[in-house]
């Protein structure tokens, strides 16, 4: 006897028990009777395509027991729309659920579906920022944030400042760097130029330069710079001064960042008669500053002979 079988409101449903497939199923989960019963009622209502308030409650119950249950989430979304259930109420319920189960594909997909239908973004950005207090690198939350920006055109609603806030907290948060890239360059298809525009490029290089000054051995701003170079096709030589600040091989303690030395190799290779110097920079990485990547640095050296430098080729 269980919660549903004893409830008169469910008396008309004949539950469909779990088919285990055979007498000795592999990795069978000894889940609770409550879960088994709820699933048997879910199978029954799904078989008859029932969308009703009681089904919503059933999905709530199941999600509580197993938040990774994608079928329940998808069926719940259908149910919400069929019933014209108030979307604000659904969001309020989701807020609580998200805090309990934030690392979950389904919950963010569902949120996305609901907010899209609701057509209102007020409160979302704040909620997302709250989620970052728990984990500032949560992949789904960043993905949801990108979607919000695109869906509601929030490109210039303080989003750049938001990335600054996030990077102020942790300049090594690569997810925040990725979001910044998106905000700056995400509207190319609509004709809004990003780092291909000189003014914006200068601003972003300056942003990266300041971040590098805080922590030179931080891969994120260096990758950001490389991304700018690849996308804009700017000459590497203009970064030489910055790079030498952190990779001055002429001084005993002149190398403050392996990433700077990596970029220096490309800067040098681009210059006239720079191949030999580039090769020496890669040797330093290989033998002293970054020996775990020795094979990669050796490969890069091999590319020097071929003419073009390794990682600055224009993106496809």
């Amino acid at each position, binding site marked *: 006897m269980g919660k549903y079988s004893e409830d008169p409101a469910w008396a008309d449903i004949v539950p469909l028990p779990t088919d285990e497939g055979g007498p000795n199923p592999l990795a069978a989960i000894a889940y*609770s009777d409550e879960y088994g019963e709820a699933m048997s009622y879910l199978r029954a209502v799904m078989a008859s395509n029932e969308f009703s308030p009681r089904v919503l409650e059933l999905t709530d119950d199941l999600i509580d027991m197993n938040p990774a249950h*994608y079928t329940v989430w998808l069926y719940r979304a259908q149910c919400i729309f069929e019933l014209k259930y108030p979307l604000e109420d659904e969001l309020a319920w989701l807020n609580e659920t998200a805090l309990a189960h934030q*690392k979950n594909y389904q919950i963010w997909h569902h949120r996305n579906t609901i907010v899209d239908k609701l057509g209102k973004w007020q409160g979302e950005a704040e909620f997302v920022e709250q989620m970052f207090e728990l984990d500032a690198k949560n992949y789904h939350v960043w993905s949801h944030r990108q979607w919000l920006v695109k869906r509601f055109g929030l490109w210039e609603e303080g989003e750049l400042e938001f990335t600054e806030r996030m990077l102020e907290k*942790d300049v090594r948060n690569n997810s925040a760097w*990725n979001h910044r890239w*998106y905000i700056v360059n995400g509207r190319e298809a609509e004709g809004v130029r990003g780092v291909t525009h000189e003014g914006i490029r200068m601003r972003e290089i300056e942003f990266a330069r300041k971040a590098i000054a805080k922590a030179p051995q931080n891969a994120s701003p260096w990758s*950001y710079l*490389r991304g700018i170079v690849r996308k804009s096709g700017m000459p590497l030589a203009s970064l030489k001064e910055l790079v030498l600040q952190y990779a001055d091989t002429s001084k005993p303690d002149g190398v403050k960042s392996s990433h700077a030395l990596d970029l220096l190799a490309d800067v040098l290779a681009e210059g006239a008669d720079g191949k030999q110097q580039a090769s020496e920079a890669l040797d330093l990485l290989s033998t002293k500053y970054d020996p*775990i990547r020795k094979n990669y640095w050796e490969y890069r050296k091999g590319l020097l002979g071929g003419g073009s430098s390794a990682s600055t080729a224009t993106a496809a």
Partner: protein
Amino acid sequence: MAQQQETLRREDETEDTLDEALRDGARIEELPSDDSDDDFEDVDEDFTGPPFPGKHLLKQNDLDLPPWLKPETFALFHDDLTTTTSEAQVKVTADCLPLLTGKERLNGLRYNKYGIPHLNREKHVAFLKDWLEPLPAPYVVIDASRPWVFYWTIGGLSFLEQDVSVYKQRLMETVRPLQNPYGGFGGGHGQYSHLAGTYACILALAAAGGLEAVDRKGLWHWLGQMKQSDGGFTMSKGAEEDIRGAYCAMTAISLLNLPLDLPPDAPARKAGLNTFTDRLGEWVGRCQTYEGGIAGAPTNEAHGAYAFCALACLSIIDAPHISIPKYLDVQALLSWLSGIQTTPEGGFAGRANKLVDACYSHWVGSCWALIQAALRIGKTQDLWSREGLIRYLLCCAQQQGKKGGMRDKPSARPDAYHTLYSLSGLSAAQNHYSYDYHGPSQDGENGRLTAAFNWSAEGPSEAELAAWKIEQEDVVIPIHPVFVLPLDVIERTKQQFQKGGL
């Protein structure tokens, strides 16, 4: 509530991984197990090695350390600024370094003559077999992901050269209620078909030799519903579209020799698409980010698991040296892949400035064979540190004590997911893969995508074993770089569906 707190506490350590199940796997690590596996006081009774093996060699070992483990290397850069990221990194390095340098040892493991733990085969086998038996109630959170468990266990056992055909009957029975009448497999009985569950069921069935259980015609129809007009695939009807979908779908199509033409009722046909591969390479290309790595979907952050999905997907639709450079900036990707091998740990992180996690030994480690083939680099040249990864996996990713299994990092508990992907990564680091550039990319008669069937592998030389400081018994058999199963299983599957048709 306790579970919730545990989850939150671990967020900074828990990497994002391929599937919802995997995310929950991190939670499972924290759930109480029905037997306690960390009773180190019990360890002595099954300790088989000589007492303190190699301890007298420790001084000598110090001299023998690879350069990235020498203090003068990892003390080179020390940015003063402390942030959440750097704090987490410092902690992990502190956990790993003593194990990597031999200053601390894993209880209950045998050590080889170089002072590195042997691969604890028997215990890992026992650990995976345990996962095939009834799982306790808290595992309800993977009820929608059980197909993964079939693959992690049966696949993992096959990597350890166990006869997994013994599971054929039970597996075929177990997955029968998961297969829907409209095609594809769901996570459980009565659950919607899902590409992750379908992929995992197919691989597990292939390993055990039970692929006749698959309704190929239904699968073909259902896959047609997943194909999107932009070229990608959704994971389930109405669910998210991401690069896992592209890889999982193409794996099913190529392995089972399904027709490449979209079914007549596929919605993507309305957008002018005719085949499963239409616009696919372009869609994958759009997932490459400014960092050079690959995101789960266009504009998201570059992530190691998605890099593998992208490269493997492209290596199915055509030969890697043709399709990979066609759709991706290979040098940018290479630079990014190289950059996420963590130092001094030697394993891989999933993203820039994230922590090492043994599962990326596969997701990133298995990219190398594909990218080396894309660049047509022969086996005499490597682009990465095999030694670094091997050392991380053997010294840090093996669970100590008697239970066996492999883990994300020393502070985490082992699980079947990390065990399979650690073993796959170990295999990728130890074996050499060659691609036959003259092999067919498509079977003329049936139009089957055959590019992924042109791989061969060879094990390490004695000199390599010595250089990596391991012995022959620590070498894992070659695992197929695209389909992530032993090579003979892939060959058998290729033959089984030679005929095609529906």
